[in-house]
């Protein structure tokens, strides 16, 4: 095995034979068991879905944000718009087909999202950190397709590399992509057809919720993590599932496939 720089959670005293990013990818891939059509944007989801195809979900179809589906890339794509995804793919759609027919047309079962902040109902901020919208402390890239993924996919899985009280917040600085729970509090616009965020996968555990009104609950905790650590890293009073389980360790086989898929460690940084 090559030398891998471990990126442990600063508050965590355990050492693992895999990185947080590897753990996140394995856990995200397992959550795709039995799923058919998955939407993947920039980053880690690309890798997680590739792993799922080789493990729990050989039939899973990935629809990339660049409009490609049925991709058979000869090497791991370095971005969703990487030309390597196109060569040998089954279909390339333009943006109107992707956003209007695939997404608004409710053809996607699970959409992967990332965010800078998430609240207890799974509303997301990927736009602005700080209280002043006109002069924010940090201006992040914004929605991209996140608003449409949240509103139109059957459900959304959120992957967060770092679980901290600054990212899991009582109140978002700005709501980019509203959960159906939040949308219901507003009077105008059509209700989202999707169920919103149902899973949140972090470096500490997995949170789940039953839409529309349930809060995120800690349902699985990663090996070596204490419940109190997760509660401390969450900005609201986190509910713990009565049947809380410990996440099974990534298997040697899962890790081997993952490291082979991303041998240049494009995503496993």
């Amino acid at each position: 095995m090559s030398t891998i720089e471990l990126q442990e959670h600063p508050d965590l005293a355990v050492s693992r034979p895999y990185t947080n990013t590897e753990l996140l990818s394995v856990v995200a891939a397992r959550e795709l068991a039995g799923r058919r059509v998955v939407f993947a944007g920039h980053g880690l989801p690309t890798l997680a879905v590739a792993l799922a195809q080789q493990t729990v979900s050989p039939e899973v179809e990935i629809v990339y944000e660049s409009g490609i589906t049925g991709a058979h890339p000869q090497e791991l794509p370095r971005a969703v718009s990487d030309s390597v995804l196109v060569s040998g793919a089954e279909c390339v759609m333009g943006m109107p087909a992707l956003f209007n027919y695939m997404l608004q047309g409710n053809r996607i079962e699970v959409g992967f999202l990332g965010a800078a902040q998430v609240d207890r109902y799974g509303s997301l901020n990927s736009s602005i950190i700080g209280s002043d919208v006109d002069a924010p402390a940090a201006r992040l890239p914004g929605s991209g397709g996140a608003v449409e993924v949240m509103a139109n996919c059957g459900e959304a899985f959120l992957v967060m590399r770092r679980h901290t009280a600054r990212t899991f917040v009582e109140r978002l600085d700005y709501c980019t992509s509203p959960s159906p729970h939040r949308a219901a509090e507003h009077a105008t616009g059509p209700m989202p057809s999707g169920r919103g965020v149902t899973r949140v996968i972090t470096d500490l555990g997995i949170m789940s919720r039953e839409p529309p009104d349930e809060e995120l609950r800690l349902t699985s905790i990663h090996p070596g993590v204490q419940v109190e650590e997760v509660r401390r890293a969450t900005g609201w009073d986190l509910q713990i599932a009565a049947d809380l389980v410990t996440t099974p360790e990534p298997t040697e086989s899962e890790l081997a496939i993952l490291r082979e898929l991303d041998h240049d460690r494009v995503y496993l940084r």
Partner: protein
Amino acid sequence: MDKTTSLHDAIAKYVRPGMTIALEGFGHLVPVAAAHEIIRQRIQGLTLARMSGELFIDQLLAGECLDKIIISFMGNSSAGSLQEVRRRVEKQYPRSLEIEEYSHGGLVARYLAGASKLPFMPTKSYRGSDMVVGHEGIREVIDPFTGESFYAVAPLNPDVSIIHAQRADRHGNVQAWGILGMQQEVAFAGRKVIVTVEEIVDDEVIRSDPNRTIVPATIVDAVVEVPWGSFPSSVQGYYSRDDAFIRQWAELARDHDQIVEWLDTNIHATASYAEWVALQEPQRWRELAVTPQYSQPVNYGSR
């Protein structure tokens, strides 16, 4: 009609200070050379419309060409933030930048309405999103059939739409393949249309495969041959994206003065994009070149 011209003349003729221009291409077929020519000609006060972030936005900003951007994702491709955008929004340094922001679906809808000359386009997004708060461009409409409330966006009709593609004939019939983004819609939405291509080809090449033509000559005003015109983004079948350059840019762009210096050396000190390409190490272009992988020909038949 022969619409071929130089990049200098196409930009000088159609792009004027104060205009709204769209430069589209979703991580692929990105009209970078055209952006560089706008910087080279120091055209100011522009509004740039574009879905996804690319580092040429940092370059246009530091070149002081833009007052405003209409955008739906302002990252540096997959390499983090666009630092010049962040500086202007967070610190108003060296000056402020107006941003009119949508989601991808919202901006797709604006181009579709623009291309179709419709007064608005409804979208199923935005209920409960802060993106609609105080936004002049996203408004509530009532479905006349069901009475249901929707959000709608206004048409976007750029003064000039600029796209890049693999090839065109001299009349402006544009053929493209790979990731097509909004190339066709933004061309139809534009009042004037400039197309840059890797190659200008004989009429017969285009006519051998008419379904490959995404933009017909009738709506195109200028055609320019610009090899490597999408660098560091890719052109399917011609060259790959240059990840190393994109990551290096993310570092360089942390300092405004370094971007200005880059523009001075690479754009203002060269007479044209072609000259800049010729000045680069040949090794760079060799490494980005791709191995041919042809499609099966299709049979159009004849009587």
